[in-house]
């Protein structure tokens, strides 16, 4: 499948096509035309192009076209041999730190670094002189000269792979270093290595021709393209084709290698790490359906945020993924609402959609998405939207490392908000940034403001992020797993800070978390999401005791807290979450639900509100769960 994908691109098609032709000529030309290439025609010495000799003859009257074709084999073979020498040597040198202790490794790495600094051609000439003129010497010279670059590449790739836990696990299991290298490390860096080797082969071909052209490479009576060019050079003003012919051959073969390499690179670049690409697509992914401008019901009165029938569709490899399938909720002024659910339940996508951070090709649709009295769905281009949203909506992400630009100091990044949204001058904005860092209780805010994000700990970065939100007066804080990457003690501090900010500013909070305990502690109300839908909504304090949806109850029971009964196994939710690209009919939770019957599997339960305003989407809401049926297949 991957091969097909490579071939179907124009670059791949051209690359592989050319390469196939070049290789076919290399294999068959000497067999077919060796005789004609060697046949002397004394009547036609150094002749120009004619019907008989298309690009002329050399000083012995031999046909140059056939000589160019026959020379393909030697030229390509030598180029491949030199590439192979360079690659093998490069891999050995690059893997040295992994195989032979730290000291030897460091020595090898520094030597390679020094060699990489030399111009490649200089190395080639140096080695060519050392190994002597001739095809073999030249192949060794070009190979050796190419080795440092490969070694550097290989070393860098290996360094990335060797930090993976599976390498550590293999070493702990007693697998020898060599086997770890051969079985775990090299296969996982093979793709970029092959891509680079393919491209390098093109360069090596050129270098080799250059050596032969200079007379350091292939010697008579053998001939490669470089040698033919050298021979043709004398008459270049009279019969330019004699020198240009082999030159064109070099270009075509070089192109064949490079295009093939490019095609490989493009193909491998797509999904070397499946999943990652998808996540990134989700994060990056805008646009709304222009047709969907049906009459929208009015937003819930007194709410800072009102969302009606929000749907998010992400284009998938096979079919579009419906990450959010129709979510309706409202947040009152100053209220804290939590969203809980497993990964893939659509909770983060909901948050990003509300903040209008999803871009094309992801499609966001809603009857309305009203924030502070303004329908964000109707708002025009993202830029004007950003300006009008200004600082009233704040988003805090899970990973505080990636939410700051690592190349800029923290203070100016905060100050930028003030300059852009509040029209403050440079000085005033910076002063405000320092003040805000103090507000989130960073010690020495003046010094901290001049530091880079990497100089902050995770908790400090998260505080600074909240500080950035406080540059204006937020009315809604959207926090997507703000404490997941943090320690309990730091988590406590960040949650405390959020609570304090809310008390001081009266901002509402939309807190996305997988941690039921965090949500119950911080929030007033909880939305439970499963497979892109809200399945239950209830007051946070009732989550542990009054939840009616079997999924909510299972989710709560599955998490041990400081009062969990130690004598019984933890409740588990059997099966695995629904694949968002393939949601079954009926209740999405039915296949994992101990209460499910045929009706559940056939009809999707509507989200119904009771007198108290709590909502639940379940045909069996509130029925007692059967005794432990701990089937473990997670």
């Amino acid at each position, binding site marked *: 499948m991957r091969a097909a994908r490579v071939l179907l691109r124009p670059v791949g098609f051209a690359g592989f096509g050319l390469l196939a032709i070049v290789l076919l000529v290399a294999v068959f030309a000497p067999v077919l035309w060796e005789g004609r290439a060697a046949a002397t025609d004394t009547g036609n010495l150094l002749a120009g192009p004619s019907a008989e000799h298309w690009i002329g003859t050399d000083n012995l009257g031999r046909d140059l076209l056939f000589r160019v074709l026959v020379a393909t084999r030697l030229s390509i073979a030598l180029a491949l041999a030199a590439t192979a020498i360079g690659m093998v040597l490069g891999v050995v040198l690059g893997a040295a730190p992994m195989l032979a202790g730290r000291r030897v490794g460091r020595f090898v790495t520094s030597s390679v670094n020094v060699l990489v600094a030399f111009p490649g051609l200089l190395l080639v000439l140096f080695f060519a002189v050392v190994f002597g003129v001739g095809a073999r010497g030249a192949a060794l010279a070009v190979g050796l000269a190419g080795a440092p670059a490969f070694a550097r590449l290989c070393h860098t790739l290996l360094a990335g792979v060797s930090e993976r836990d599976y390498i550590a696990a293999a070493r702990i299991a007693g697998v020898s270093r060599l086997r770890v290298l051969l079985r*775990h490390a090299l296969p996982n860096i093979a793709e970029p290595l092959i891509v680079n080797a393919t491209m390098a082969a093109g360069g090596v071909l050129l270098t080799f021709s250059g050596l032969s052209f200079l007379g350091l490479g292939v010697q008579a009576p053998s001939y490669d393209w470089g040698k033919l060019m050298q021979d043709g050079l004398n008459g270049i003003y009279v019969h330019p084709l004699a020198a240009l012919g082999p030159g064109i051959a070099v270009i075509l073969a070089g192109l064949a290698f490079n295009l093939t390499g490019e095609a490989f690179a493009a193909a491998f670049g797509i999904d070397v790490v499946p999943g990652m690409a998808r996540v990134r697509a989700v994060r990056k992914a805008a646009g709304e359906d222009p047709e969907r401008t049906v009459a929208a019901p009015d937003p819930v009165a007194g709410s800072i945020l009102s969302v009606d029938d929000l749907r998010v569709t992400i284009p998938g490899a096979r079919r579009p993924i419906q990450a959010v399938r129709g979510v309706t909720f409202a947040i009152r002024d100053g209220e804290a609402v939590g969203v809980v659910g497993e*990964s893939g339940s659509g909770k983060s996508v909901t948050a990003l959609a509300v903040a209008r951070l999803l871009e094309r090709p992801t499609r966001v649709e809603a009857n309305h998405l009203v924030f502070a009295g303004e329908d964000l769905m109707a708002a025009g281009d993202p830029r004007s939207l950003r300006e009008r949203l200004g600082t009233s909506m704040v988003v805090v992400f899970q990973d505080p490392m990636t939410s700051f630009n690592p190349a800029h100091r923290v203070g100016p990044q905060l100050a930028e908000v003030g300059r852009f949204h509040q029209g403050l001058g440079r000085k005033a904005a910076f002063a405000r940034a320092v003040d805000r860092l103090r507000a989130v209780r960073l010690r020495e805010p003046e010094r901290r403001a001049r530091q880079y994000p990497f100089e902050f700990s995770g908790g400090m970065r998260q505080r600074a992020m909240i500080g950035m939100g406080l540059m204006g007066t937020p009315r809604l804080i959207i926090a997507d797993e703000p404490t997941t990457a943090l320690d*309990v003690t730091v988590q406590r501090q960040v949650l405390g800070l959020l609570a304090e900010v809310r008390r001081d500013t009266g901002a509402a909070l939309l807190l996305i978390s997988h941690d039921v*305990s965090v949500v119950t502690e911080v929030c007033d109300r909880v939305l439970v999401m499963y497979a892109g839908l809200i399945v239950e909504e209830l007051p946070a304090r009732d989550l542990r005791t009054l939840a009616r949806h079997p999924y909510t109850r299972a989710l709560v029971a599955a998490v041990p807290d400081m009062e969990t009964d130690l004598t019984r196994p933890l409740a588990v939710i059997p099966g695995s979450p629904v694949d968002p690209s393939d949601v079954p009919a009926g209740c999405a939770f039915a296949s994992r639900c101990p209460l499910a019957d045929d009706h559940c599997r056939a009809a999707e339960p509507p989200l119904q509100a009771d007198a108290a305003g709590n909502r639940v989407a379940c045909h069996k809401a509130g029925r007692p769960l059967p005794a432990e049926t701990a089937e473990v297949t997670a």
Partner: protein
Amino acid sequence: MSLLSFRDVSVRYGAHTVLKGVSLDVADGQVVGLVGESGSGKSTMARAAVGLAPVTSGRILLDERPVPHRGRVRPVQMVFQDPYSSLDPRMTVGESIAEAMPERLGKQARQAEIARLLALVHLDAARAGDLPVRLSGGQRQRVALARALAARPKVILADEITSALDVSVQGAVLNLVRDMRRELGLSMLFISHNLAVVRYVADHVAVLYAGEIVEYGPTARVLGAPRHDYTRHLLDAVPGAVRRTSSGNGRHAPTSPLKEQT
């Protein structure tokens, strides 16, 4: 009787001391929980025991002998936090597990052993042919456990093995740890920053702070009646703890007694 014993172990990277003379015993059939914040040296302790971190001074002994770091027999095994990084994406589940087996087995014996190990971690034997890409996080973590068990270890070091998992899956893995301990009499050093999780699986708890063990004892005692300030501070930080202990106190973060709040 197998006893993993840290005796006055220090680990230093350059000028930075990660562990300062730590002593800890993991007795036969015991699960010892190790808690502390990131940077306290929890993972370094485990990594030092399997030879992944250099021990500057002190000794790590298994049954009074140094833990072997060479050869095929490795009685101390480790399971990592991130199940997406701990399995080679290019090796099938069966190959990964077979690699950790201490002796070379014939094809059939190997298949049988893989099936046995997969059954231990409640996975279908048919999974042996799958690549990790096809497994969920929880399933991967089970495979990682099976691989550790394949080495026939006397002690398993579990480094935050549930913190990268979804809550619904975390419970299943914790149950599995308890089952294996009951059925196999496994000894384990269970590292986690989640006190509720440690409370659920460990008999004893050691609290690590800035490279030193500040409190050690039976789980119920340490978590029920902590003696050290830092342990109390850690307990206060557990979500939901504030409401339970003092409802009048509001939802404020208690400032750390030991570390300035930066």
